[in-house]
């Protein structure tokens, strides 16, 4: 099976966010594989181990994304591709990312594409379904189980807590939800092997795509931090009185009861 994973690097979940000049400050920030994309990498490796074939991890991003791609290779992916847009694309959006991916996949023979259901930074969750639509693939989002048999896939899909039992056909794109699997940590031999695995770097010029096709459809005009919350009020006194006071505050001050 030819399996591809869409991977994005994101800020570490523990990172504090600061803003300067209307942009997120990323100097010195720790980056990780987007946590939902980790489920995708793990699932891709499992499916390959079961059905044979090859796992290729693809990132549309900058030079620094190489680190996260190497981590995916160390986990067990076979190949990685970095489509480096740093020099060619000032501001992209989901539309332009999918344009690039569509051009990349144009000449590829693909059975399965896995992606995270959302990236924890920009959190649009659009790239997977958008790409599937362009490629004419079936897609299922927020999956928690995947069993492939020949040309059919049986899937558990999380729908706000309920589970849908879905059947569909390959070629297929799925987006991964927590609960699908437990992503492995790269082993030491895995890390050593990853250094020798192929990591191709492409630029937009290498794809059948004109730069003027890459006009984003949306634009961020400002980024700001939420207003600092004033320190809350921790109540005092006998527990029973505190509870009475809380109810009165919720009713009269906060007006939510």
């Amino acid at each position: 099976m030819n399996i591809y994973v869409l991977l994005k690097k994101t800020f570490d979940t523990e990172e504090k966010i600061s803003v300067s000049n209307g942009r997120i400050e990323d100097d010195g920030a720790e980056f990780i594989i987007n946590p939902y994309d980790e489920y995708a990498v793990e699932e891709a490796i499992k499916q390959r181990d079961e059905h044979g074939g090859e796992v290729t991890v693809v990132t549309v991003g900058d030079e620094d994304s190489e680190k996260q791609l190497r981590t995916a290779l160390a986990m067990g992916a076979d190949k990685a591709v970095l489509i480096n847009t740093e020099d060619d694309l000032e501001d992209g959006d989901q539309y332009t990312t999918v344009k690039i991916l569509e051009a990349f996949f144009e000449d590829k023979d693909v059975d399965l594409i896995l992606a995270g259901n959302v990236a924890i930074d920009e959190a649009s969750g659009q790239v997977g379904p958008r790409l599937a639509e362009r490629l004419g693939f079936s897609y299922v989002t927020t999956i928690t189980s995947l069993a492939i048999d020949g040309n059919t896939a049986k899937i558990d899909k999380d729908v706000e807590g309920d589970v849908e039992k879905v059947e569909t056909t390959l070629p297929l794109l799925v987006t991964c939800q927590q609960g699908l699997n437990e992503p492995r940590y790269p082993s030491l031999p895995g890390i050593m092997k990853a250094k020798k695995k192929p990591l191709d770097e492409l630029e937009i010029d290498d794809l059948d795509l004109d730069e003027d096709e890459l006009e984003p459809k949306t634009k961020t005009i400002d980024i700001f931090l939420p207003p600092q919350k004033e320190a809350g009020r921790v109540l005092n006194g006998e527990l029973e009185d505190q509870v009475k006071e809380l109810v009165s505050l919720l009713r009269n001050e906060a007006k939510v009861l």
Partner: protein
Amino acid sequence: MSEKILVIGESRDGVLRNVTFEAIAAAKKINADAEVVGVICGSENLNDLAQEMIYYGADRIVTVKNEKLTSYTSEGYGQAVLAVIEDENPYGIIMGHTAVGKDLTPKIASKLEVGLISDAVDIHVDGGQTVFTRPIYSGKAFEKKVITDGLLFATIRPNNIPALDRDESRSGNVEEKSVEISDLRTVIKAVLRKASEGVDLSEAKVVVAGGRGVKSADGFKPLYELAEVLGGAVGASRGACDADYCDYSLQIGQTGKVVTPDLYIAVGISGAIQHLAGMSNSKVIVAINKDPEANIFNVADYGIVGDLFEVVPMLTEEIKKLKGN
């Protein structure tokens, strides 16, 4: 330019979700004079749902009735909604940022080759430009975003843009459109209900959430009682789910659901940054924890330091008294 904004309705168990009404209000925020056209897909009871959308401010409704639309699939609904878009040629489309909204809208945007702004919490018009505000980095920051080219297409986060009041004196036309739906490659074989009955967590006005401090599945009972008197829903931290105190369908946080209720009561939750990502934009936050150093107190409006097994039942009783009056 046409003066129509489409609102894609969404129902669950035969009832429209509240976010559909919020989407109507959002369309009116973009342009108070626009004709708001609701779209409802399904196989039965569509006229009742259509009427409800009109009571909440939609001017006209197009229903697409087809056996193949009995349960939501992106393929089926995609075909139906695209056919309506082609007919109506709107300049804006709004839908709820729900499981269905997240699944359907990118497909439509991609097909139409237009932009889409997902998960907006506010919409305002500034100098003729429609500006959408949305959380990024798990709510640690916000961005203001505009669509530079074409259709104003957005999904809105539940519980952020207030719906208009229901008004039965509003009236409007309901038209049925017939759409040929091709055979579906993707089929829903069954749905296993795991999400608790009653109030929907992502739309609840009150959420009572428990963490590791709740100690057991049994320990959640007092939380359910409190949620019940408040007409709210119960949620949980990842810690409580990992420890098997409750189902993952209740999980609130960076992985899990994002909620913005009017009142969030965090019980025995320490307040890890990943949990805060799922609830810190709640309007009023109450923390109940026996550890005075717990991080949750830093985001709480009101805090009680104490044993949750004492505090929560007392709180339930107090609120019962209040509601009794």
